[in-house]
């Protein structure tokens, strides 16, 4: 658990980044401010909020983020679950935008809903993949030791 001021700074910063990214990727600039805010909040809740509880120090958090960007280093199993969870949440929110142009006229095609759903589904898939991955790695390691 990060200390409160650090956690607050961390969460606000990531919320702002998500908001800006959403607008850059085509969320309305002037209208639908609340919708975009909800989307940014959902993304924060899935990715940054667990991080607040997971990491003990700010340094480690930044280190893991840097490692995520530069694709090196080995996070602990818990951290890898968090990383998979957040990356897949982004991908889900990204991919969910595909339903917007379709002319089906359904209520769930309204702006933030598909991305929200995509975000949560992506997060679940991410957790699932991460857990399977950990399981597979442990299993292979166990088999190796057994052979020896």
């Amino acid at each position, binding site marked *: 658990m990060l200390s409160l001021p650090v956690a607050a*700074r961390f969460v606000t*910063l990531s919320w702002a980044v998500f908001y800006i990214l959403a607008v*850059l990727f085509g969320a309305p600039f002037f209208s639908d401010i609340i919708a975009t805010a909800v989307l940014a909040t959902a993304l924060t809740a899935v990715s940054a909020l667990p991080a607040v509880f997971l990491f003990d120090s700010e*340094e480690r958090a930044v280190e893991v983020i*840097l*490692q995520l*960007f530069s694709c090196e280093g080995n996070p602990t199993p818990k951290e890898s679950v968090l990383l998979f969870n957040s990356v897949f949440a982004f991908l889900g929110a990204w991919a969910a935008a595909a339903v917007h*142009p379709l*002319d089906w006229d359904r209520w769930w095609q309204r702006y933030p809903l598909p991305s929200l759903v995509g975000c949560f589904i992506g997060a679940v898939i991410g957790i699932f993949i991460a857990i399977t991955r950990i399981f597979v790695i442990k299993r292979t390691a166990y088999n190796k030791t057994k052979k020896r």
Partner: protein
Amino acid sequence: MGSIIRILLVSINILLALFIFQNGFLLKRQEILSKSSCSDAHAQPGQTCWMKQQYQRVILILVDALRYDFLIPIDENTKKSKEEWYYRGQMKNIEKLVKSGNVSIGTLLADPPTTTLQRLKALTTGTLPTFIDAGDNFSPDAVISEDSFVYQAAQLGKNVTLLGDDTWLSLFPNQFSKTAAYDSFDINDLNTVDDKIAPILQDEMLNSNSSIIIAHFLGVDHCGHKFGPSHPVMADTLRKMDRIIGQTIETMKSDDHGMTSTGDHGGESENEIRAGILVHSKKHQIILPERPIHQIDIVPTISLLMGLPIPFSNLGTVITQLFTRDLWEIAVGMNYEQVKRFAETYAAQKNFGELHSHTIRDSNTMEEQLDTMSRIQTLLRVSWTQFDDAYINAGIFSLVEAIMFLITNEVMSLEWIIYRTGCGLLQAALLTDKTDSDGSARTLLLMTLAVSCLSSIISMCHKALQIRISIKSMLSAKVIGPILVIIHSISLFSNSYVVYEAQVVRYFLQSLVTLVFLEKLRSTALRPRKPFKLNFLWKFVNQDQNLIIFTLIMVGLRSEPIFHRCREEEVGCDTYYPSRQAGSLTRDAQVVRLLFALGSLAVANLSVFKYYGLRDTKSQIESNSKRSSETIRILSATSWLHIAIIVLHSVFASLTHDVSRANLSAHSLSVISLICAVLAWREGNSAICAHFLLMPVYILFGDGLIPAIIIFIAVSVLIAEFVSREFIASTIALLIPLGFYHLGHSPVISSIPWNAAFVGIPGGTALRVLPALFVLFHLNFSAISSIFVISSESESSQKMSAPNTAWTLTETLVLMTIRATLTCLVSSIHRRHLMVWKIFAPKFIFECILTIVFIFSANFFLIYRQFFGEKFKNSEAKINKLH
């Protein structure tokens, strides 16, 4: 050299394949050249030709683009919205005449496509013109060879007078007894033609002996093009038309018969195909039916009223209400005989057996005859969008083969050169020889293609076995980029994704740029190290100013909706000031637009000279030539003059409508900018040279789109610097369609920027190549500018080598061709789709034009590089030495 030959030959193959596909998809209607004659029908007793002449004279007034709701009178009490005020209820004379019961108004349905040429063809021959004829609109030799009432009148020695649009003259050369025709091409010219022909029409009605007078007024159409319907000028033009029609009806002699009909423009929306018709006769009162009348129905009606034979290929049904009650059966009977004769001939000549089932049974009552005619009409309407599957398949197969050959990247041996040339020749044979009855050329071509495909597949399998696949290599932008392009191409199968393509392309391009950004972070020199602070995260992300450039690109791409031109299918889309027609804006909006353009020009100019002017002066100072840096300084001073001229041009063109001064400023600007560009080129400063060469382009795009083009170029330049060579191909393949939308285009026939055709060219010049080139340049600017992105990319990368550039071009070509192939596939699969002529066919046409222009400019660039590349390398080496 080998790679150049490969690209050149495969480009030719691709072009030919696209043309083959087009030949099968955009099919021409097959014309029957037979003509009707007086002996064809059993004439009324005592008549020499089909029917007794009912009137001495028919006056046909055509008002281009007069919509139905322009014409109908409205109640004083009904509320009109502000936009509607300018075009509804402006025609007071007609209102009066309708109330007195002298004239009758009906709805007239035009068949799409509703471009002028097609409408005139339909209005005189009674046939249903097809989509491909839309392309012939500007070709000068569009003579109508089918039977028409103009031809019949000339044949029987009746005089036909034509006033107005000179398109008629090219359609019917030497068939009018008297003409007063004027050029219709210049849309800036609102009144000249109408003012000239209005008095002639009066004179003609009083003094001449013409049996048919056709007066074609263009003012409303031109006004609609220039200002849109909601504009004060539209109200003026409508009132003027109203006056002319009123006067004509007053001066009509008792045995005249007047008819006003209106035709519209462009696509096939409800507003565009619903025109009004107004009929007046001094002889008896006419009440038009409530149901809409087809435009082609006018043809048999005029023919029979004037005692002429109905044109042979006519499909229209006579409007019985224009005859006296006792003649209805006879008129419909004549009409039925003619349509039946045509259907039988068509069925026999063109192997169209289905028609027989309708003609075999004799229909005797009037209702039955009308019913049969309408069924024949529907059947032929469907069949004239009949596609030639053989051509479609050959075209798509050739495209697929070309893509596969490019991907394998075989060494261009002599055998392959011969093979590809042979392939091209076979394709050309298929294109030129339309009477390939036994299909020998097609069979040979398909065999050749199959062999080549097989060889490509084997070679690809061989290569695929050698590649080791890991998850990490699959996730790099190098793989995902092409996948994004392909997903975008596949998304075109759905009409919603075609409609919102601008957003889709932007989203994908932004995602790709983000991926490239992440990839850059992964491979940067600055490694994560302790202490891990938030500040360091910022420093890490923003090294080499990556984050700033990334954000700039994203913002630049995000600005697309400001310049987006909405198509009517888009829900909740606003077209903002920049891409609206200049005339439809208020004066304030125009001034705002102009200031916006001026501001962006100033920013662009300042930044160009700040970044590129300085950079080169530094290297010049090192080589101790002070004079050259002075040249740049002088150039930077003159650049403000350029901007002043550009702004002046916009003021003349859109605010004061002073065409001659606008032209003068455009000409002077192009001369000055050319001189400056040459000077800058001599300095070896290609960026500033390009900057000056862009000045005339700004004028071409007009004040509204100047900010769009500046932002687009800025984004292109940033992308060229930001995106490394491995990812540039897929980025450009997405950047080209994005640029198409960014510069205020949309894949709809009616949104072709015709304004560009008249920039700097006085109306009515004989040279029509130049306007066409201007329009093409306007449409495809992104495809042309993308070449410069590739070339500057190759210049900036350290190991500059020709094969690398050629390979980048090949990759881009592959991606562009994949998209073109998929649009071909889409339009051929959806050919029976409801939206095919509205969404898929225009999309196919625009996509193909974009691809073709890209192919041309890529080849031009490669050849240029091959022959002048030596100089390039020398100068490059010099600069490298200096550094």
